[in-house]
């Protein structure tokens, strides 16, 4: 029973990752086709001052996305679990619905709203607040905003699950012991649900680092992330081995977070079973 699926994943998931690693040390022939070989300069190029800012920017944008997602997602999940009452799952459904819509369509929705001829600029000029229109697109804010709008659900759901598992009686206990609302939150609620926040952070961070759609459509050349750089290498006049090296570096960096996440998920599953 394990064989077909296991073999499929081995041949079409693990082996291709190996090929990527192999080509990342390769070079190209005159036609631009990749050739295997030993060329670690691809990796020197990754950390070249020309490209290093892009890597840092990707991590920075993804980290900002995580922080914003906690800041927005936690209050939402908290309100729904604590005060949703019998509408809890209805509210959760309402909150999650936008995230079930195709990511590309969602990003497009913001492009249409915020572009120079878009609805927001139309309303602003009708109100007389602006004459030339405000340039929203091509800024770091819109790119990070797009990432938040893309992946917020991955933060809300684990936090919701953690808050939902928590016994509300401990909050009452905190208050009975003369804790102020803030102290109760700081010393009771937050530590109890921190695992959920952590899980959500990893689930948002991983796809955000590799994203290229938001930076491509809501940003411009100044806001490009590592995903855009990789994509450029494989389409048009790019350098495939360099693209493979970029992919490998990104995968190795993210591997730390993946292993952390998978281990803590396995531990949570064991605890739930016990």
């Amino acid at each position, binding site marked *: 029973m*394990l064989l077909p699926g*296991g073999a499929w994943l081995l041949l079409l998931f693990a082996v291709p990752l190996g090929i990527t690693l192999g080509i990342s040390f390769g070079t190209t022939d005159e036609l631009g086709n*990749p050739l295997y070989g030993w060329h670690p300069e691809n990796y020197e190029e990754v950390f070249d001052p020309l490209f290093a800012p892009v890597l840092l920017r990707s991590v920075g944008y993804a980290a900002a996305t995580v922080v914003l997602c906690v800041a927005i997602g936690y209050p939402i999940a908290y309100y729904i679990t604590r005060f949703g009452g019998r509408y809890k799952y209805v509210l959760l459904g309402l909150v999650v619905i936008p995230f079930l819509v195709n990511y*590309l369509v969602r990003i497009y929705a913001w492009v*249409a709203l915020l572009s120079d001829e878009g609805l927001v600029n139309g309303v602003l000029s009708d109100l007389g607040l602006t004459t030339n229109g405000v340039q929203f697109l091509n800024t770091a804010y819109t790119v990070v905003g797009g990432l938040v709008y893309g992946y917020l659900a991955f933060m809300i759901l684990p936090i919701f*699950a953690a808050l939902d598992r928590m016994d509300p*009686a401990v909050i009452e206990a905190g208050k009975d012991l003369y804790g102020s609302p803030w102290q109760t939150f700081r010393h009771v609620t937050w530590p109890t649900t921190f695992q959920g926040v952590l899980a959500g952070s990893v689930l948002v961070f991983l796809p955000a680092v590799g994203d290229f*759609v938001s930076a491509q459509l809501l940003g411009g050349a100044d806001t490009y992330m590592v995903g855009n750089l990789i994509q450029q290498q494989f389409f048009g006049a790019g350098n495939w081995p360099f693209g493979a090296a970029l992919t490998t570096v990104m995968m190795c960096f993210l591997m730390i977070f993946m292993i952390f996440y*998978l281990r803590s998920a396995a531990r949570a599953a064991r605890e739930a079973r016990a």
Partner: protein
Amino acid sequence: MSIARGQAGRLPFPRRREASRSAPPREFDRPRFLKWFLVAFLVFTLAPIVIVALFSFNSSKSLQNFDGFSLQWYRDFLNDTQLRESLFASLEIALVTMIVATILGTMLAYGLVRTRARFGGGVNVLMLIPLVTPEIVAGVSALLLFTQIGMQLSLATVMIAQITFSISYVTVVVRARLAGLGRDVEEAAMDLGATRLQTLRLITLPALWPAIVAAALLVFALSFDDFVLSFFTTGTSPQPLPVRIYSSIRFGVTPTINAIGTLMMLISLATIALAVALPRLVGRREYRAVLLGEEA
């Protein structure tokens, strides 16, 4: 997400326990600020999508003023041969991906839970990693695989790449249900003389049905919506719909994209609604009573 939820995934219905444990907070306890935060959140997340859908029915080309109801952008979309081909290509990819990934993923789940294979642990890790791998990594490595073995990029390569990524979703969903099933019913069937295969066909599969259907529909929606993997593995013609939309957005926004986007929203939301509703309808039948020890 579903991996982290552990126990919750075993139960077909959410447990309602807090209601009995403590009284709901009184009205004046509720922070009014949080309520308005939720309202603002819903407006900000839903409004862009609603506006896209609204302007897809606009009779003029404007994205600022709604000038009257019209279906012309939908007509434009359906009269464009390339776009129509893309729509059918996407549906075909999603259908094939759904069928193959559901079969492989269900087998894998059964193997991981019910058999004691020596390499089970390794397969388990191999199954979980795609769930947390950024899609661009999978896209790049699939593209490199296909070009290295000399395979022409086409709809078939898109399907292969998507199946690889979808197997894990099916396995996680089906495994959660299987783990909650308890072996005793299967053992009882075998005690009564059923062979292993008969037990699988008459007991295990019917009980897993709701989870399998939900997983299949989830894969259909994921695959239909997928952009990154398709982008890296598709040939030139016909391209899946999301790839086609992406290239047209780069040339500017047009009401036709609104129409395509609205149609795609409808398809994926309907599929996911079915995925949520169907297992509940099916699960209400006798199996739930027998296998989960609940009252019918």
